[in-house]
């Protein structure tokens, strides 16, 4: 290497050193900070690119209406690429910015941050992922699933199947097709518990990561086991593969119910379109579709600014989940500010705010959840939607299944 090259590099290093971290200017207005983690570039980006803009839209909507009790919300979004070190760094930055609540993103990231949340007394949410045991507020005081955990989803799936099969599962066969990772394993304990009381035959079929190869499992299901119903708990690209393969093996998709991460518009489209997936049932923890007042308000907000509503709104499953997350955080902060008589809330206050959440329905988009110091899940409500004629059609109202079984398993997990 020549000396001129060394010189060039030295200049480059000096220039790079000049770029330093520019902190956020302290605003004159009263504001609360929400830390938001997202994955727009990692393995779950299909969720993140639709869910995170929704959170921002909801926060903008609240701010455009004057904020929460006079406080503007500052949303600090950082991409964690579904990586743990990145999530830790992002969390520390949220903390340094003074965040009073954290929207965590991803199961391993939730695990990694659980202890920090307790130590720093900042509440964090893990809607639809994380550990089911986190529903127990006395064991995880600062972690809030705020949506049906995998246990509640598993119980709800069984209840749904029971109704579909005429109210009695005795002697029926249910196949559980799942992604072979900890999250995929999680509902098995509930299914096995219910198998005893409901007397159905359960067989599990694991799909190894990355979950795009399941021809053997599907053939096994369709031609050997021949179940009365299939419960699919898959992530990423694998739900689409499952739909395609089941279709090819001649198994009717009207006898398949997918859990919450196997249930969005992109999954249907990647499976070959709505016609292919006709009949497929999906479990949802937030309302699906366009027919909610809050979505109309967001469209109106964009129109008022002279802009088109964002294209992400078309993915109603993930977009509406983003709205749910935003709404629950805003409500918790509102409760906290009210409880303090308008004073600046701390993380501890917002935790109590979360625990006071009761019926934030958002016109039916959010389930009638009721959080308390003991129950951080809010009941474990879900709805089932079916693919019918090119869209998701609501099949059931909000319901929760087997609360006694879930309570027993939660107790056992303590």
């Amino acid at each position, binding site marked *: *290497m020549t000396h001129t090259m060394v010189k060039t590099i030295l200049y480059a290093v000096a220039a790079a050193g000049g770029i*330093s971290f*520019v902190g956020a200017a302290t605003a004159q207005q009263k504001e609360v900070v929400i830390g938001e983690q*997202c994955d727009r*570039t990692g393995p779950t980006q299909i969720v993140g690119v639709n869910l995170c803009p929704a959170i*921002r839209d909801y926060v903008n909507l609240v701010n455009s209406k004057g904020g929460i009790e006079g406080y503007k919300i500052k949303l600090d979004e950082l991409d964690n690429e579904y990586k*743990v070190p990145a999530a830790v760094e992002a969390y*520390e930055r949220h903390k340094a910015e003074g965040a009073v609540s954290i929207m965590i993103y991803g199961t391993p990231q939730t695990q990694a941050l659980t202890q920090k949340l307790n130590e720093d007394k900042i509440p964090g949410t893990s809607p639809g992922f994380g550990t089911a045991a986190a529903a127990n507020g006395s064991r995880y005081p600062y972690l809030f699933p705020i949506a049906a955990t995998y246990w509640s989803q598993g119980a709800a799936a069984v209840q749904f199947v029971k109704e579909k099969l005429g109210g009695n599962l005795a002697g029926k066969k249910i196949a559980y097709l799942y992604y072979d990772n900890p999250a995929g394993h999680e509902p098995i304990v509930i299914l096995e518990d219910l198998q005893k009381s409901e007397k159905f035959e359960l067989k599990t079929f694991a799909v190894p990561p990355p979950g795009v190869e399941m021809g053997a499992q599907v053939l096994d299901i369709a031609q050997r086991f021949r179940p009365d119903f299939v419960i699919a708990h898959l992530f990423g690209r694998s739900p689409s593969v499952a739909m395609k393969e089941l279709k090819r093996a001649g198994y009717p998709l009207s006898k398949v119910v997918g859990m919450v991460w196997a249930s969005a518009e992109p999954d249907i489209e990647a499976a070959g379109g709505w016609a292919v997936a006709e009949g497929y049932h999906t479990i949802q923890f937030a309302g699906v579709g366009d027919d909610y007042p809050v979505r109309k308000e967001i469209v109106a907000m964009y129109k008022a600014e002279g802009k088109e509503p964002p294209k992400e709104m078309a993915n109603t499953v993930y977009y509406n989940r983003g709205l749910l997350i935003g709404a629950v955080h805003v409500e918790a902060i509102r409760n906290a500010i009210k409880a303090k008589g308008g004073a600046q809330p701390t993380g501890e206050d917002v935790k109590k705010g979360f625990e006071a959440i009761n019926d934030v329905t958002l016109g039916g988009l959010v389930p009638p959840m009721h959080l308390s110091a003991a129950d951080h899940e809010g009941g474990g409500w879900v709805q089932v939607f079916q693919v019918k004629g090119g869209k998701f059609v609501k099949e059931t109202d909000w319901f929760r299944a087997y609360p006694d079984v879930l309570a027993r398993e939660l107790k056992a997990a303590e």
Partner: protein
Amino acid sequence: MLHRESGVFKTSYGADMAVFPLPIAKGAMAALTVLFVAVVPIAFSEYHLSILNLILIAVVGALGLNILVGYTGQISIGHGALMSVGAYTAANLITRLHAPFWLALPAGGAMAAVIGAIIGIPSLRIKGLYLAIATLAGQLIIEWVINHVPWISGGVQASIEVPRPTVFGVPLRSQAQLYLFLLFFTALAIAATINLMRSRIGRAFIAIRDQDIAAEIIGIDIFRYKLWAFAISSFYAGVTGVLYTYYLGIANYEQFQIGVSIDYLAMIIIGGLGSVLGSILGATFVTLLPIATRWGLEAAGGVFFSVADLANIIPNLRLIMFGGLIIVFLAVEPEGLNRLWRNILSYFRVWPFSY
């Protein structure tokens, strides 16, 4: 180190092998110690310390992998899984037997060393890409076992929560406390690696890397030393896993999947194969670069884009810049950051009278 003598004056092997080649090196070491032990934890904010902590943990892992890949010339794509072996060993010891950190750390390392040596057995017959695939199999097998054996992984969600490490009765909670804890072990790892490479074992590793048949002819037991390389390297990986477990308060194998193995390989390749300083620079570079590019983009991006657009642009542009900068650095100096640093030093050795 920062300083260089003005020429080559060494007259004995002893002088050539010295850790501190010049008296001033001891002074520099003392100054660095004061800087890292006394100044940094006070001067840095919690947030910046948390980044530094991630770097410290990565340095230990990169050093370990460099012993295997850089010094011994073997390859492993299974180091991520070996970290999880250390993590789960320590987590089980901590939760079941209430083991203190001074027991859990070496135990985690030792278990990883044993498993790593087993994974290394194929290296006795195969090399290069073939060995890479064999170690990849090791990664997948370890992941599968942890995922499916609740006795190891603690059952639901395959994760075990551990309490914070306690030193003299004080639980380490704040980033500054954890920083000092991690710094101690990282410094230990650096010193151990430097000295390992000055020893008979280290020279045997290098001989095997340069030409294994020649090494065998001059009397090095290849069988033994290749397994030693795997074991020592895996020990570092195991300790990295334990440090992660203590830092995060949880052992979870999803943090140690195949992508992590690749990240660590990237660290040592960017930093410089077969050098201690290269491991440190590489670990720092790979950990810090995504964060630093985001700072830069946040500072500059607000001028051109709206906040909502920026939220989408930054993560994507950051990935592009990350990849681009790695290519740039490797194109400028294929031997990595360590060589780049040495070139800068030798430029200044005769500066300003370079002609």
